[in-house]
C-alpha cells in the first residue's frame, strides 16, 4: 500500500508550485507579474475587519485596445502583501506585490504597467482589484470601470494597412487630385498637398487640414516600432475619381513572410467587401520601391 502511494505522491509533488504560464494569451498582460489562471472571484464578498482594503487609481479611466504601458496603481492596507488585478471576463489574473509606503496615508502603494489585447470583451469593461494579506486572506474586491476608446482611424475616409510580423511594409494610394491629375500618397510623399509653384501663395490652413496624409511609416528601414499599421487618412470628403491602393514590401527585416490586411473605412465604418488580405514574401522585396511600386491590392471608384 505504501509503495502504491509513491507514484501519487510524485505526481502531486510535480503539480505543486505557481503556474509557469506567462499569461500572454489573456486580455490583460502585466509583464514581470505572476499569472494565476482563473478569474478573480468578484461575487463572493471578501474581507472583514482585518482584511486589507485596496483603493485603485488610474490616470485615465479609458482603455485603448492594443495599447501597452497603461498605469494601474493605488494603495492597499498596511497588512497587504500583494494586490490581485484581473480584467473581468479574462482567463486569469495577476499578482502585484505592494511597494513602498504612501507617506500621506501610511498605506502601502502598488503600481504596474498593463498591456491590453487588440480585441477586448464588449463593454462594460471593468478591472477587479483585491488586496491580499500574508496568510492569503483576501479583502473586498474593488471593481473599477473603464471605457473602451475607439481604435478606428478618425477621418472621412481611411485606407488602413496592418500586418503580422516585424517587416517594413509601405502603404501607397494613388488618388485623383483636384486639378484632374493623379497624385500618390505614401512614404515618399506623405500628403496630397501639391507644393505651390514659385510665386504662388502657400496652401491655406483649410487646405492643409483637408489634405489626405499618411499617418506613420511603421518599421521604417527596419527600425522596429512594433505598430505594424499604416493609414492614409482623408480628414475631409475625398475627391471623386479612381483610387488605387498598393502594398509595397520594402523589406521583410529578416522575417520569413508578412501577412497583411487592407481595409477601407468610411466615417468610422468598414465598407462591406473592402477587406483585402495577402502575403508578402522575399520575392516581393526585389522590385523597385519608388512611386507606383508595390502590389496592387485594392481599386475603387468614388
Amino acid at each position, binding site marked *: 500500500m505504501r509503495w502504491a502511494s509513491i507514484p501519487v505522491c510524485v505526481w502531486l509533488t510535480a503539480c505543486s508550485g505557481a503556474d509557469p504560464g506567462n499569461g500572454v494569451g489573456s486580455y490583460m498582460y502585466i509583464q514581470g507579474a505572476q499569472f494565476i489562471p482563473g478569474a478573480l472571484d468578484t461575487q463572493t464578498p471578501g474581507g472583514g475587519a482585518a482584511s486589507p482594503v485596496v483603493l485603485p487609481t488610474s490616470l485615465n479611466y479609458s482603455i485603448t485596445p492594443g495599447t501597452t504601458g497603461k498605469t494601474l496603481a493605488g494603495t492597499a492596507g*498596511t497588512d497587504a502583501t500583494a494586490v490581485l488585478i484581473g480584467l473581468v471576463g479574462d482567463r486569469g489574473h495577476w499578482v502585484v506585490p505592494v511597494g513602498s509606503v504612501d507617506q500621506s496615508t501610511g498605506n502601502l502603494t502598488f503600481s504596474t504597467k498593463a498591456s491590453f489585447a487588440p480585441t477586448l470583451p464588449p463593454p462594460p469593461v471593468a478591472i477587479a482589484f483585491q488586496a491580499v494579506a500574508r496568510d492569503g486572506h483576501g479583502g473586498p474586491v474593488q471593481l473599477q470601470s473603464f471605457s473602451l476608446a475607439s481604435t478606428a482611424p478618425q477621418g472621412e475616409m481611411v485606407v488602413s494597412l496592418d500586418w503580422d510580423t516585424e517587416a517594413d511594409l509601405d502603404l501607397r494610394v494613388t488618388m485623383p487630385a483636384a486639378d484632374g491629375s493623379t497624385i500618390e500618397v505614401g512614404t515618399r510623399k506623405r500628403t496630397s498637398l501639391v507644393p505651390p509653384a514659385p510665386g504662388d501663395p502657400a496652401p491655406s490652413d483649410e487646405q492643409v487640414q483637408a489634405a489626405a496624409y499618411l499617418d506613420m511609416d511603421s518599421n521604417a528601414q527596419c527600425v522596429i516600432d512594433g505598430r505594424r499599421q499604416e493609414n492614409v487618412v482623408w480628414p475631409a470628403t475625398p475627391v471623386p475619381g479612381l483610387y488605387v491602393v498598393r502594398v509595397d514590401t520594402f523589406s521583410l527585416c529578416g522575417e520569413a513572410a508578412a501577412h497583411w490586411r487592407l481595409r477601407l473605412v468610411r466615417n468610422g465604418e468598414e465598407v462591406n467587401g473592402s477587406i483585402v488580405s495577402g502575403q508578402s514574401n522575399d520575392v516581393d522585396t526585389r522590385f523597385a520601391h519608388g512611386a507606383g511600386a508595390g502590389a496592387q491590392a485594392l481599386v475603387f471608384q468614388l
Partner: protein
Amino acid sequence: MWLGAAPLLSPLLSRGAFAQSGDVAPDQAPPTEAQRAEAVAAKAASATAELTVELARQTGEVAALRADFERRLREEQDKREAAIAAERERADAALKETRASMAWIQGLSLGGFAQTDLSVRQSSSDQLNNSTGEPLNQNRFVLRRARLRTEIDRGLVTGALELDGNTVNGPQMRVLNAEGTLRIPPVGAGPSLFGLTVGLFKIPFGWEVIQSDRDRLFLERSIAAQELFPGEYDLGARLAGGWRYIRYALAVQNGEPIGEKTFPVRDPNNVKDVTGRVGVETPLSPAVDFAAGFSGLKGKGFHKGTAATKAGIVWNDRNDNSSVDAGEIVAVSAKSATPSQNFDRHALGADLRVVVRVPGLGATTAYGEVTWAKNLGRGSRTIADPVANSGQDLRELGYYFALVQDVGRFLQVGLRYDFYDPNRDSTDLQQARQVPSSQSYQTWAFVAAARIPAGRLIAEYDLNRNHNGRDSAGLPTNLADNAFTLRAEVRF
C-alpha cells in the same frame, strides 16, 4: 588387376601351350610319354623366356614413365615456389611502402557520440521570449550533443581536437576542445609527473566540471557547475600531473568559458583567471577506490560600460489618453558614456568520490562536491555583476551529492540532489520592508539507464524547486518547472 595380368598371359595362349594331346601327324609314331613331357617342358621354357623378356621391357617403360613424371612434378614445384617467393617479396615491399606513408597515423584515435533528447517540461509554453524572440516551448526533440573527437599520442606530445554539434539554440557546430600537451615522462601508467597543456580545455575545478559527458549518468551537470563554469571549456595554459596517488592541476585561462553569455572564449580584460585543484586518487583495496580534492579560482570579472547617448525629445503620455497634451513632450538631455570596470571574483571547492565494486552487482559510486564563490555566476540564471548590483557582491553557494549504482552489466540507476544559491544575500520587498529571501534552486534527479557498449538509453525525472513564482499573497514560491527527459545515445 585382372586387366593388368592379361598382357602377360597372352603369349601362352597364342602359342597353344595347352594344346590337346591328339594333335600328332598320322605317319609318325606316337611320341612317348617322355617325349611329350619333354616337348611340353621345352615349350613352357620358351614361353617363360619370352614372358621374362616382355616383363623386362614393360618394367623399363614404367620406370621411364615414372622418371619423366617425377621430373615434370619437380619442375612444376620449382615454378610454384618461385612464384610464391616473388609474390611474398612484392607484398613485403608494398607493406613497407604503406607503413612508411602512414607513419603519421600511429597513436591516432577517433571517437565520438551523439545524444538526442526528448524533453517534457512544466514551464514550456507555446510562446516566444519577448526580449530574445526565442521559442519558449521546451517539449521537443533536441540534439543535445554530437561530438567527434580525435586524439593523438606521440609519447612526449599528446593532443586532442573535439567538435561539438547541437540544436539547443538552432543548429550549430563549434570547436569544443583543442589542446596540445608536452608531458614528462612521456610514457607510463597513470598521469605523467608534469604535463604542460596549451589550448581550449576544461577548467580544472572540482570533479563534475572535468567529468566526461559520455561517462556521466545524469543528463546534465548540477546547476552550480552550469552557472559557475558554463560550458566547462576555456582558453589558456595548464600545468597538471600526478605522482603516485597525488593529483594536481594549475591553469591560467581567459576567464570567459565557452558557455558564458557576453564574451565566450574571448577576454574583455587583461587579467586572467587562475584555477587549480590538488587532490588524491587511489585504490584503498581491490574493491574500493577513493578520490578527493580541493579547488580554487581567482580572477576578475568584467562590467560593460555604456556608450554616450544623444539628446532627444520624448512624448510621455502622462495621463494615458493617447493624445499629446501640454507638458507631455519633454527634452531628454544627452548622457555621457560610462567606462567599463573590472571586479574581483573567486571560488573555493571540495570534492569527494568513493567507488565500491560489489561482486555480482557492479560498482556503487557515491560522490559530492561543494563550492563557495563570489561574483562568479556566469550562466543563464543570475549573472554576477557587483558593479550593476550597487556595489554589493554576490556570494554564491552550490553543492550536490549523487549515488550511482550499476545493476549488472546492462543497467545503471542514480539519484542526485543539487543546490545552488546565486545570491546568499538576496532580499525581497514585502510590505515596504526589505526582508531576507532566497533565490536558490534545488533539484532531485532520478535516473535510470540501459546500456550496451554501443550506447545508452537514459530516462531522467527532475524535480525542480526554485523561488521564481509568486503565490496569491505575493510571496515568493516555487514556479512549477519539473522535467522528464528521455535520451538516446550512440557512441563509437
